[in-house]
């Protein structure tokens, strides 16, 4: 059994890496996406400064504090201290003020805008009693590219997994490769296992190359555990490969397979939070988003890379993706037809 699986695995790998055009596309495409988005979103926002203000009620009573009357500063009410401080660390806000006595403020040592916002705060506070107490934090700014990269990697895994098995197996069925294999002692399960393993190897290797390449050129953040990130992408790839197998189990033409794969992948591309956060989206879109596997893949990858999560924090997502994979794999083995 193992020998037969290995034979098909090797043949499929060869087919992949000798197809220079396909190989180039698999590596080049995600780079192109990351770079173009890094370029498009490199512009600054309109606000001169963003300052978070801790309030229990969630509204700002500006009159009492002179600093809050400063023009051209956007004041953002914040309820909880923890997340607000994280935003200062990532330079998503320039300064965080807790006006309640004894008043304090948090500023990022590495932020130029933080430095200027601090000057303004201190100037406005002079003569109105005690100066607020300085709390220093540090951390790099979270750029869009840092936020989008985990999503782009996930998206690439989705495309490569879906088409790499879905489209390829349908092509095999149409041109008679499956028929020829069927005439041998190879079983359907052995064939499917070989396809899954080959695609996993391909998808993960390609992702590692893209990751390393992006690391050289973009210097993005990676705060969490590499093991966690690997497991997240592994579970995600397995999930999309299984989904691709289901599409491939019966269809006879590549055109139809292509259509079905597009139908599956485009909603995910838009609703899984690859390009923008779903937090501001409507309730219907948010619900739809929660039904898509890519949402969990991107979410978990972002937790690891941006929020510094370890294996335990992303275990629920990994387990969910692995569970769905198992279900889809069994279903595809049951549905599979050689012809």
């Amino acid at each position: 059994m193992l020998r037969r699986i290995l034979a098909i695995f090797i043949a499929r790998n060869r087919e992949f890496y000798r197809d220079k055009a396909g190989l180039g596309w698999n590596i080049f495409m995600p780079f192109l996406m990351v770079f173009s988005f890094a370029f498009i979103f490199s512009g600054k926002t309109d606000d001169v400064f963003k300052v978070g203000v801790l309030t229990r009620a969630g509204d700002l009573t500006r009159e009492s504090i002179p600093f809050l009357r400063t023009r051209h500063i956007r004041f953002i009410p914040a309820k909880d201290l923890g997340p607000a401080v994280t935003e200062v660390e990532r330079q998503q806000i320039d300064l965080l003020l807790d006006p309640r006595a004894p008043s304090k403020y948090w500023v990022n040592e590495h932020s130029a805008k933080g430095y200027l916002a601090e000057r303004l705060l201190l100037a406005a506070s002079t003569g109105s009693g005690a100066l607020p107490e300085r709390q220093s934090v540090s951390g790099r700014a979270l750029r869009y590219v840092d936020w989008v990269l985990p999503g782009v990697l996930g998206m690439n895994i989705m495309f490569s997994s879906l088409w790499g098995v879905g489209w390829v197996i349908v092509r095999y069925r149409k041109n008679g490769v499956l028929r020829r294999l069927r005439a041998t002692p190879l079983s359907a399960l052995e064939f499917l296992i070989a396809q899954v393993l080959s695609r996993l190897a391909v998808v993960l290797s390609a992702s590692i190359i893209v990751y390393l390449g992006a690391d050289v050129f973009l210097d993005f953040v990676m705060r969490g555990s590499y093991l966690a990130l690997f497991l997240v992408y592994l579970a995600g790839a397995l999930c999309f490969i299984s989904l691709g197998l289901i599409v491939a189990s019966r269809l006879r033409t590549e055109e139809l397979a292509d259509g079905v794969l597009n139908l599956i992948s485009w909603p995910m591309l838009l609703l899984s939070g690859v390009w923008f956060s779903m937090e501001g989206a409507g309730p219907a879109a948010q619900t739809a988003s929660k039904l898509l596997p890519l949402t969990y893949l991107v979410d978990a990858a972002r937790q690891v890379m941006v929020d510094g999560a370890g294996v335990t924090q992303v275990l629920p997502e990994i387990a969910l993706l692995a569970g769905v994979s198992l279900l889809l794999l069994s279903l595809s083995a049951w549905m599979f037809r050689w012809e």
Partner: protein
Amino acid sequence: MTALLEARDLVKTYPGVRAVDGISFQVNRGSCFGLLGPNGAGKTTTLEMLEGISRPTAGEVLYEGRGPDRRFREEIGIQFQSTALQDFQTVRESLRMFASLYSRTADMQELIAMCNLGEILDRDTRRLSGGQRQRLLLGIALINDPQLLFLDEPTTGLDPQSRRNFWSLIEEVRRRGKTLVLTTHYMEEAQRLCDEILIADQGHIIARGTPGALVKEQFPASVVRLPLTAWPQGRPMPEGCQVRNGYLEIFGKEVPPMLERLERAGADLSELRVDTPKLEDLFLELIGHDLRG
């Protein structure tokens, strides 16, 4: 001789079509069995049931007296009519991959020599000529040193030279004691390779026997073809002739009397052609209708 493979009352129906309608026959060990018929006769459908690729709607296929099981897969070889091999593989890699799928394999060096694959071992399988490709597919079909070999129209689309070379190859395979089942369009092929042939049309057997006997019984030696325009207008057609594709055709064992009849009728013989009847002509004789498709 004992039957290696037996088909019993095979029936295969697709929605609206009865592709194979109760076909029975035996294939003896060490023989070469030919399935002939026009397109749509049910040749390939029958072959697929024999190969275990498709399940008969009714009836059964017995290999050494038993239904096809896993051992059957190990002991047969198949050359399909149209097979794509996985892309980006060389001839050697394709052979090795298929060899890995079987528990018993033929001697690779001997197989390469026999199928004349030595010079193209490192060539990408997509860059093979028609003849080379058929030789590779035969090599793959023989990779497990099978007892029983199925060939589905193995020489369709080959040039005459490659076809003849392929026939020699099949004869070499036969000398090694393999049992063969093949389908073909070519009477010449069946005559050269087969011990026994079965002619099917519309899912029924319409003739069976050794090629020699069939030819003697059913096959006139010659056909004389004359353009219709060469026939004098208004004169009644000669007896026993038929009109097809703008030609007048007369079948017969002896050519001179046929020519005499035409000349007497005043026909213009300048565009006359005399052919050896082909499978197509045999069908006209046997079933009285044209080949479909």
